[in-house]
């Protein structure tokens, strides 16, 4: 039994994984993923598979967004569905009640998401992670229940008749067109998140995750950066919400339950926190598996649960863990020696 609070050497340290990661650098991997997504409909373009694929893509976007908060910054968020809901409802209401085009709702959604991020993050980000967890959970429930009780949000049956996506005059509401639109948008979202993760801000997030005090000592205003992570997460969630409404044409509070937040978190952790390819994989896994299990009928969720356990036992770090390694140009050792000894 090894008892490392600090993780035991991650499976990503194993030579196999090393090689794998060298072979498929994140970038090339991204292209492969995109190619697969784009080609899928040529294999099966039935409405069903398209809707499953579209949902999966949206789920990827959510997972990548949550990954910013949980994976990069290490803030446990059990209410992520809230931001998703805010996006869906804001755009839904504007589109149905006020007849805006979905595109036009984007800026409003962004504003709302940021606002929500600040409102919930502002007072609570000082809390220790477990307490943050419950606060976010509460926030998620508050949003859902409020949507359920208000009239503009259509109460329990929610909003229906949300128009399909239409960008610059061309109508993307047909399942295939919509799927491709979503894939493109999600791809951008994934790349965006990954790039943030590899930037100055992304590093700061990781520093905070690893050791908040040390981060502060390095001049990192941990509070502001946590808030930034939160807001980024909210933005991703909100945008995904718009697409969600467009896909289902109807949204209702049942779509934003705690279970959803849990499933998104599931995708992130299952894939490998902080690892973009991992999280994408995890999201696809979590969203597609239950559909694949449809024919298991009564056994469906039983099997799903068991599979989750099994997978984690065999990949404790996640399907595709993030590992700290950079290619470093071989350095001339003697230089170090000199540096070390010269006075």
């Amino acid at each position, binding site marked *: 039994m090894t008892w490392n609070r600090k993780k035991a050497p991650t499976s990503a340290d194993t030579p196999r994984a090393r090689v794998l990661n060298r072979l498929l650098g994140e970038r090339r991997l991204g292209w492969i993923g995109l190619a697969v997504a784009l080609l899928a409909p040529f294999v099966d373009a039935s409405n*069903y598979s398209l809707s499953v694929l579209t949902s999966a893509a949206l789920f990827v976007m959510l997972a990548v967004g949550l990954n910013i908060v949980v994976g990069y910054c290490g803030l446990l968020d059990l209410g992520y569905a809230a931001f998703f809901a805010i996006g869906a409802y804001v755009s839904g209401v504007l589109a149905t009640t006020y007849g805006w085009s979905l595109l036009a709702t984007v800026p409003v959604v962004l504003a709302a998401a940021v606002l929500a991020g600040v409102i919930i993050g502002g007072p609570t980000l000082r809390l220790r992670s477990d307490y943050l967890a419950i606060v976010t959970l509460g926030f998620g429930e508050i949003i859902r229940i409020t949507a359920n009780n208000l009239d503009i949000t259509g109460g329990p049956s929610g909003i229906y008749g949300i128009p399909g996506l239409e960008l610059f005059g061309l109508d993307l509401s047909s399942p295939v067109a919509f799927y491709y639109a979503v894939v493109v948008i999600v791809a951008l979202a994934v790349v965006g998140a990954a790039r943030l993760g590899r930037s100055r801000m992304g590093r700061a997030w990781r520093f905070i995750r690893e050791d908040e005090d040390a981060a502060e000592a390095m001049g990192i205003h941990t509070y502001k950066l946590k808030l930034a992570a939160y807001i980024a997460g909210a933005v991703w969630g909100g945008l995904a919400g718009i697409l969600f409404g467009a896909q*289902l044409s109807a949204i209702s509070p049942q779509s934003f339950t705690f279970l959803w937040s849990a499933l998104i978190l599931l995708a992130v952790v299952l894939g490998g926190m902080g690892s973009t390819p991992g999280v994408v994989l995890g999201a696809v896994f979590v969203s597609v598996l239950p559909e694949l299990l449809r024919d298991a009928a009564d056994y469906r969720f039983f099997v799903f649960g068991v599979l989750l356990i099994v997978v984690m036992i065999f990949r404790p770090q996640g399907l595709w863990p993030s590992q700290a390694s950079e290619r470093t140009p071989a350095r001339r050792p003697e230089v170090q020696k000199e540096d070390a000894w010269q006075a």
Partner: protein
Amino acid sequence: GGGLLSSGEEGGGSDEPIVLGMITPLSGSSAAIGPYMQNGAQLAIDEINADGGIDGRELELVVEDGACDPRTATAAANKLVTDGIDISIGGYCSGATLPTLPIFEKAGVPMIIPAANSTELVEQGLSNVFLINGTGTQQADAAVEYMTGQNATRVALVDDNTSYSTDIAERTAELLEEGSGPEVVLHESVTAGESDYSANVNAVVQSDPDFVYWTGYYQEGGLLVRQLRQAGYTGPIMVADGSVDQQLVEIAGPENAEGVFATMTQTPDTIPGAEDWIADYREKFDAEPGPYSTQSYDAVRVAAEAVREAGSTDTEDVIAALEGIDGLELFSGPLKFTEEHTLSSGGFLILSVQDGKFALEDALD
């Protein structure tokens, strides 16, 4: 099936079966309902196939889990469309059924919705949507009529925050406000899936009503009735169709449930001569029929009738045929659709629990 490049056309040969699709909860908190509806439909299908199907074409049933969750239901709807169903005869939770409407509409699949009955379902005025369960409005009418008849004066409404439940409660409230009869003294909501409703019960008792109307499902209904009685409320209690199930009596305890009224469409138990139907059902599935077994059974029969009339499964023809139906005998009475594709005669009756069973109290006519 079939990729973008392959032509995904399924020919409509006249000898191949007519496929009916049903979305019903098999998982999640309403999972209990699924089997009742599935069996009800299966029973009808077997009967029809037994005497030769429809112009030689057999009926076939495909069931998908909707889990009362919009996302799951949407996927299910798409699956059914992909499986090439001709008519949808499912739909239990309004909330989960709503997003499936446009999918079936786009795919040109007529929907005969057996259970789900929130008024929103028809408010969009989609041509392919038909409800054969009385709508919230109709149910509210029945409820108010009866309350007034009982000369209740102070009514407490309790719903469970689901679209179906609030729909009935709100419309009941509207009617009561308009009318000169009883007044609404409280409109309370409970959270489904919990055990302790003492706080809500307390609110009800505080408001000192002489009539309580519960518009949710039987799981919570049973607990609520029991806890109301324990809290010392002795006045009349009425429940909506979602609560009409033997389980309600057992959960509440017979002594508490005795005398509880219900607004309900016709069920085998209330129809003279339906005993043999129940017998068949028992014999076939060796289980008791439950909520919406009959509506699902009828949904199949309505579908069959429409196809027979239309002479094909072509969308337009079937819809036309459905609109044309007049007087087809259903459990809920003779069928004729209104403009909005709802039951012209609401067909709501008042049941009451008599020695531990729901039985006809007042036919309201």
